[in-house]
């Protein structure tokens, strides 16, 4: 079961002269939450659309459990497009039932599932209302219900958290964790990197249609330099200037942020700091995903 993989293998896609994807590759294991991050226009949506067969790739393949994805496999994918879309003039319940049936559910199973998910996502009372009469937040919940109503084995969600209130974010997070725990590979894109870091087992960073970094948050950090924050109130401005291999990143009041390069020794930094007087804080700082992301993207630009 845990061996099952959603493989995105070497996808390339161009629109006219614009290259949207260049050898995009990554895979998502069953039961894993995979965060897909990247700047606007980096190719996240295009990748997801290709997975769903809404677009055709110029090259490459998408496989689930070793076999290329077909229309039948796609019926078992829950998809939330970036551009939200439901029939505005159709009633919530009817619409979800219709989508469930299009995904191959029987009428009875569809009814049960609609009842269950509208209940769970807190829109049960609006089942007989037209979608256009709902608030934007509730429309988002219905959209999520549309992705889940046919009990998918795979989830592909494009920006599922955008436009959600904090309560809905929690509901959404729970649902995603639960789906992953049940053995579904879950891929979602987001610009809320703290959320991605908190939720995801692994993260992929895309830039200009290519996967530039992929792994757990710790793996992504592994390559980056160690940082240390020191608070030494009596230290002079230039106390750290002569330390070998150490780069001063920032100095705010009495706090200094240092990056440790080749040959740097954190114990040497501490003793130097103590030599100036008391040290109130001495801490290793793990770069956040946001910083990693910024690093990766700017490195690429510099290249």
């Amino acid at each position, binding site marked *: 079961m845990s061996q099952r993989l959603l493989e995105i293998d070497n996808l390339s896609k161009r629109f006219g002269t614009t290259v949207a994807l260049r050898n995009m590759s990554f895979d998502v294991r069953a039961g894993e939450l995979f965060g897909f991050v990247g700047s606007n226009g980096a190719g996240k949506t295009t990748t997801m*659309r290709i997975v*769903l*067969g*809404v*677009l055709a790739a110029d090259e490459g393949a998408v496989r689930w459990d070793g076999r290329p994805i077909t*229309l039948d496999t*796609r*019926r078992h*994918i829950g*998809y939330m*497009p970036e*551009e*939200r*879309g*439901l*029939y*505005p*003039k*159709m009633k919530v319940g009817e619409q979800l039932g*219709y*989508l469930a*049936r*299009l*995904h*191959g559910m029987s009428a009875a199973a569809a009814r049960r599932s609609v009842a269950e998910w509208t209940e769970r996502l807190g829109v049960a009372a609006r089942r007989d209302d037209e979608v256009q009469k709902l608030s934007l937040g509730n429309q988002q919940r219905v959209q999520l219900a*549309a992705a889940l109503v046919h009990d998918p084995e795979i989830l592909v969600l494009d920006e599922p958290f955008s436009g959600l209130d904090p309560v809905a974010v929690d509901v959404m997070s729970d649902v995603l964790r639960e789906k992953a725990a049940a053995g579904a590979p879950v891929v979602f894109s987001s610009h809320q990197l703290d959320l991605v870091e908190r939720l995801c087992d692994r993260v992929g960073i895309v830039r200009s249609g290519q996967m530039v970094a992929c792994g757990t948050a710790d793996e992504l950090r592994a390559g980056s330099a160690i940082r240390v924050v020191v608070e030494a109130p009596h230290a002079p401005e230039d106390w750290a200037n002569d330390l070998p291999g150490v780069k001063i990143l920032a100095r705010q009041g009495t706090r200094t942020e240092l990056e440790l390069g080749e040959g740097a020794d954190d114990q040497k930094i501490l003793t130097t700091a103590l030599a100036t007087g008391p040290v109130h804080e001495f801490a290793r700082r793990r770069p956040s995903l946001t910083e990693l992301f910024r690093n990766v993207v700017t490195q690429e630009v510099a290249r």
Partner: protein
Amino acid sequence: MNPWSAIRLVAGREISIKLRSKAFIISTVAMIVAFVALALVLKLIGNTSGTTVGYTPANAALSAPLQASGKAVGKDIEVKEVPDEQAGRDQVADGSLDALLIGDGTAVRVLVKEDLDDQGRAALNVLAGQLTLNQQITGLGGDPAQVNTAVANAHVEVQQLEKPKEYNGQQLVLGIIAGVLIYLSLLLNGQTVAQGVVEEKTSRVVEILLATIRPWQLMAGKVLGIGAVGLIQIAVIGAAGLAVGLGSGVLTISASAAAGTIIWLIVWYLLGFVMYSIVFAGLGALVSRQEEVGGAVAPALMFVIAGYVVGISVLPSDPGSELVEILSVIPVFAPTLMPMRLAMGGVPVWEAGLSVLLVVALIPALIWLSARIYRNAVLRSGAKVRLRDALAA
């Protein structure tokens, strides 16, 4: 799930949405009311088209010849005896008689309220001529009845190079009504297809749908669903119109001719709808806003309108028009022109068959073309996608 159940689901949604839409119910009822009203108006006009002529007892001998001469000039004349001249005068004054024969019966003298219509006057002139002729024959010692029989039997002998097609006035009207019905159905339902495509594109729901079913299944379901509703609509309106027409006595064609007209109407509605709505669906996919639908489908709509306009302006005066005959076999004009001609009668079997065949042959090509446009354009929202780009991608 097989393709047909997907198509059935899509079609089912279209049908249930459409049948519940107020616009649909109102337009159907309005069309039925229009047909009933038309039948009643025709009946009313039919009643006033005859002329009623009264006669005093002294003129009784003139009543039968008057009806005969009326028929000769193409005028339906009813005759009615009045007790005396004064009673007749009163009836002329109140309008229940159009004219009154007065005098002693040796000359044709009539009393009218204001004036006599041309045909009525012509009929009476013929009668007057006849009367004088009879008197002259009697004066010469002949037998007027014998002379009249001889005259009645004298006909010009006409040799025909070709047998003319017979057009019955009622069938002409029927043909025009068939044309109007087909035209309106194509216009309304074809637009509905295009609007439906744009609705899905605007609301982006198409992306979820296309992740589940293929574009052609979505298109086919939509066309079939809306087509089925349109078919029910046209059948109900057609049946109601015929029932009222036959029931009120306005239509006097045989039931089999009426059934034939309805069946052809349905066949051509189906062919025309499938042909045009497929194109409309493809063209609709090019735009992203409802306001742009009209402009996008206009090129295809021009053919529907052109066919209809040619039919309705040429056929009533010239049912055998060669131009219409040729156009009605060309697929793009056939759905509007052929049913008109078929309702009017006189269409050779091979022409009717050929036109159906050509449309049936064209449909797969249109499906291929439209599906291509649709697939390439339906996910590109924003500005109108150029047709060339949609075809090339």
